[in-house]
C-alpha cells in the first residue's frame, strides 16, 4: 500500500512537471501572437507588419487630438513615450477616449504616408480607481 502511494506521488509530480514544461514551451513559441496589440515602437522599428487588422496601442499624446468640425473624422497621435504614430479615424469615439489615457486602434498602417488608418478605436483604462474629489485635490496640489 505504501509503495503504491509512493508510485502515485511520483506519477502525479512527474505529470505536473511535464505539463508545466510543455505549456512553458507553447507559451514561449506563441508569445508574440498572444499580444493583443503592437506598440508604436514595433511599427517604427525595421519590422514591417502588413496586416489588414493590425492593432496598435499606447497613450493618446497630449494636445494631439484634431477633430473635424463637419464630420466624424479625428486625427491624433498614439505614443508609447518613445515613438509616436499618427492615427486617422472616422467614427464615434468611446467615452473614455481622451488625452494621456490608453487607447487601442485597429486598422492598417500605410508605410508610405506614415499614417495608421483605424477602423475601430477601443479605450483602455488603467487599474487606478480614485474619487473625483480626491483627483481634483491632487491636481490642485501639483
Amino acid at each position, binding site marked *: 500500500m505504501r509503495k503504491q502511494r509512493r508510485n502515485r506521488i511520483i506519477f502525479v509530480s512527474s505529470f505536473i512537471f511535464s505539463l508545466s514544461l510543455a505549456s512553458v514551451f507553447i507559451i514561449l513559441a506563441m508569445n508574440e501572437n498572444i499580444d493583443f496589440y503592437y506598440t508604436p515602437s514595433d511599427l517604427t522599428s525595421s519590422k514591417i507588419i502588413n496586416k489588414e487588422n493590425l492593432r496598435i496601442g499606447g497613450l493618446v499624446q497630449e494636445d494631439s487630438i484634431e477633430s473635424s468640425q463637419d464630420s466624424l473624422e479625428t486625427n491624433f497621435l498614439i505614443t508609447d513615450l518613445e515613438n509616436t504614430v499618427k492615427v486617422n479615424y472616422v467614427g464615434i469615439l468611446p467615452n473614455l477616449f481622451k488625452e494621456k*489615457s490608453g487607447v487601442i486602434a485597429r486598422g492598417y498602417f500605410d508605410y508610405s504616408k506614415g499614417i495608421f488608418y483605424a477602423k475601430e478605436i477601443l479605450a483602455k483604462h488603467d487599474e487606478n480607481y480614485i474619487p473625483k474629489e480626491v483627483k481634483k485635490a491632487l491636481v490642485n496640489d501639483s
Partner: protein
Amino acid sequence: MRQFFSQLISFPYFFKLAQLSFPYIFVISIFVILLGVSWGVFFSPSDATQGDVYRIIYIHVPAASVAQSIYYTMVVASITYLIWRIKMASVFMISMAPLGALFTFLALFTGAVWGQPTWGTWWVWDARLTSTLILLILYLAIISLFSSFDRRDSTDQAVSIIVLIGGINLPIIKLSVEWWNTLHQSASITLSGSSIDNEMLIPLLISILGFYIYVTAIGMRRMQIEIIKREITHNWVKTIFQEKR
C-alpha cells in the same frame, strides 16, 4: 489535527457538520454580500475617469476571484484524490465545478457589460478574456465528464486528471495581463498594496468576502447532496432520514 482531518473526510461526520452550520454560514453570506454590494453601489464615490460605470466592480471582481479560487481548490482536491484516493476529494470536485462555472460566467458577463461603455466593446480576444473563457469551458468539460462514465472510480480518476491539466490555465489567467499586451488592465489589488482608493476598496473587500462565504455555504450543501447520492444504500443515511420523520 490529524484526527480532525480524518473526521472531516468521513461522510457521516461531514454531513452532520454541514447540516448544523449551513444555515448560519448561508445567512451570514447573504448579509455580507448585501452590505458590500449596496455600500459599493449606493454609498461609495464615483470614479474620476469612469464615473458610475465602475460600480460593476462590486460584482465583477468578487465573481472572478471566486471563479479562479474554486479551481485552485479543485486542483488541490484532484492531487489529493490521485495520490490518496480520498473519496471526499472527488465529492468536492463534482460539487464545486457547477459553482465555478456559474461564477466564471458571471465574471465574463459583468465584464462584457462593463467593457461596452468603457472600452467600447463587449468582447475582444485578448489574453485575459480568452483564458477566462477557457476556464468556463474547462468547468463545463468537467461537469459533463462526471456524467459520462459508468463506473464511479474511473470517472473520479479521469476528472482528477482533467482538473490537473486545466490547472495550467490558472497562472496564465493571473499573469496574462503582465506578460502580454492586453485590453484588460493589470491587477489593482496586489500583495504590495492596492491602486483603488480606500473609500472604494473597503466595500469591494467586504463584497469579495461575502462571495467566498456564499460559495462555502452552497458548496457544503451541494457536497451533502452528492454524499447522499453516493451513500444512499448505507445505514447511516437511512437513520438520518428516519430521524427526520
